[in-house]
């Protein structure tokens, strides 16, 4: 195999990092239970809560859509941001740094590999949830909705790369930060309720935190597009799409800068190979 440089090396690195993740999933089928069946059951709990409260039927759709998007957030958090922590523990991180490729390519490879399982998971939640609970989506603006979804993913995985840079420096501290981001983000992004309901009930400072999470505006825009007339959005979908696009660009650049900066810091403080801290 010839020597690769530049874009070819970048793409080959991505392929190489995505490969074990996709193949690993096929070799260890227990993930189907953990990643698909259980989140669906979890989502159902929120559906039944709304049914117990006699909420309007559209709320069930909001929860199902939120459950699907939650899968991506959890993937970013646990299969991407914290992955460098595990790689450090397993001794892979120092090998990544020793290799001629970039961490950005490795993280993008992780993202692609993770998207494979997560899309299956999210699609299963959306399809089965729709069938079981009789959710009716309005597909008249599916193209716009798909664009919003893709731009949300770019921003979300950009944020994941920023978070993963923290693990170059930190060990258990970073792990705890990732842990503590799970439910608070589900709350602040309105995964189980309309974002406008949240913005009307929390202090203004917290709405800024909410807005920085790509899932918030992404989900709000998707709900407005797929359930038109049944939800009051925080902003029109077009504006939310523009904000998400801006966030995506900023997050990707910031991730690049952060990864370089944190890698250097980690080298200076000899933390790249520091395990079990």
């Amino acid at each position, binding site marked *: 195999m010839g020597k690769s440089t530049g874009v070819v090396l970048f793409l080959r690195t991505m392929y190489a990092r995505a490969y*074990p*993740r996709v*193949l*690993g999933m096929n070799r*260890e089928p*227990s*993930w189907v239970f*953990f*990643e698909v069946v*259980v*989140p669906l*059951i*979890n989502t*159902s*709990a*929120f559906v*039944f*809560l*709304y*049914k*117990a*409260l*006699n*909420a309007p039927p559209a*709320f069930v759709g909001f929860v199902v859509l939120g459950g699907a998007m939650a899968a991506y957030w959890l993937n970013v958090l*646990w299969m991407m941001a914290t992955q460098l922590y*595990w*790689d450090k*523990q*397993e001794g*892979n991180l120092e090998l990544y740094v020793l290799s001629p490729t970039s961490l950005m390519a490795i993280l993008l490879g992780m993202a692609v590999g993770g998207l494979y399982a997560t899309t299956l998971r999210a699609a299963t939640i959306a399809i089965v949830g729709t069938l079981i609970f009789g959710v009716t989506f309005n597909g008249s603006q599916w193209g716009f909705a798909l664009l919003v979804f893709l731009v949300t993913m770019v921003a979300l995985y950009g944020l994941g790369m920023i978070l993963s840079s923290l693990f170059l420096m930190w*060990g*258990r*501290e970073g792990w*705890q*930060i990732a*842990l*503590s981001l*799970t*439910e*608070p983000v*589900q*709350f*602040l992004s309105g995964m*189980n*309720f*309309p974002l406008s*309901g*949240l913005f009307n*009930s929390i202090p203004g400072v917290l709405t800024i935190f909410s807005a920085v999470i790509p899932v918030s505006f992404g989900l709000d825009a998707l709900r407005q597009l797929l359930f038109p007339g049944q939800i009051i959005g925080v902003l029109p979908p077009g504006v939310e799409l523009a904000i998400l696009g801006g966030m995506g660009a900023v997050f990707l650049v910031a991730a690049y800068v952060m990864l370089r900066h944190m890698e250097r810091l980690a080298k200076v403080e000899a933390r790249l190979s520091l395990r*079990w801290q």
Partner: protein
Amino acid sequence: MLEAVRRPARGVSLRESVRESARTFRVAVWLGWQIESSWADPFVFFSFTILRPLATALMLLVMYQIVAQGQSGGFFSYLYLSNAFFVLVIQAMAGVVWTIFDDRENYRMLKYIYTSPARKFPYLIGRAMGKVAIAMLTILVLLTVGIVFLGLHLNAAQIEWGWLIVYFLLGMVVLISLGIILAGVGLVVARHGGSIGEVVAGMLLLFSGAYFPPDILPPVLKQVTLALPITYWLEAMRRTLNGGIITATYPDGHGAFITGPVSPLLAQFDNWQLLLILLLSAVGSAVASFFFYRWIEFQAKERGMIDRLTGY
């Protein structure tokens, strides 16, 4: 320690065995607490610890308030108390099972635990105690926040303390036993199963009537709910803290309002019936967890899974 290493593996007296188990438990509790808490100073540690359950409570509050339009009734108490105690369901089960993954894949010391005289069950339970302690602290904070800021109505004079303590302890036996069963499963699945405790807890959200009364479930799911001890434990916790069955006022469909239990199904059980169910569940789950873990541990050893690494 040397004495313990030298003693023969077979033929130890009961007294010696109990002493060794107690020592393993004590060391495991200390180790578990250090792993949980030593990464930050106490304030930061406490802040991060409380963030997740508090966010869940706020999420449920917003969901409730959006639909209930600002009203705060019996259903809110049902929901809030269930959520507070559900923290223990997650942490107790997850605490035990996470020990397997943490020791096997992260610290890579599971094989050394197995080659030491440490007793497995006291070790697993002891390691989980750190998470259990955090969960109990969290429950206290959630109840305080609920009473002070969120309109939760609890009267200390009405709390049935005796029942509360008995139910609580029986529930702990059930939860730890379930955790040991899941830890056994953890021995034979890959690292992505590390969240098995939390995902099973997620399933229990649906099947334990934690967020809604089981009465509204379809008949088959309702039977599943009634077959799970956690359903009765959560009902017992709500009931004893509330000083009786939680009631709510509903429109009767004819312009008037009626008051009744939030869950008529669970209201059928009196305290003694709940006690009997939880007692039988505690004994049954403890025995089942012992034999299941022993069996699956053998399977893991036979397949060389005790020290495998599965990160990808």
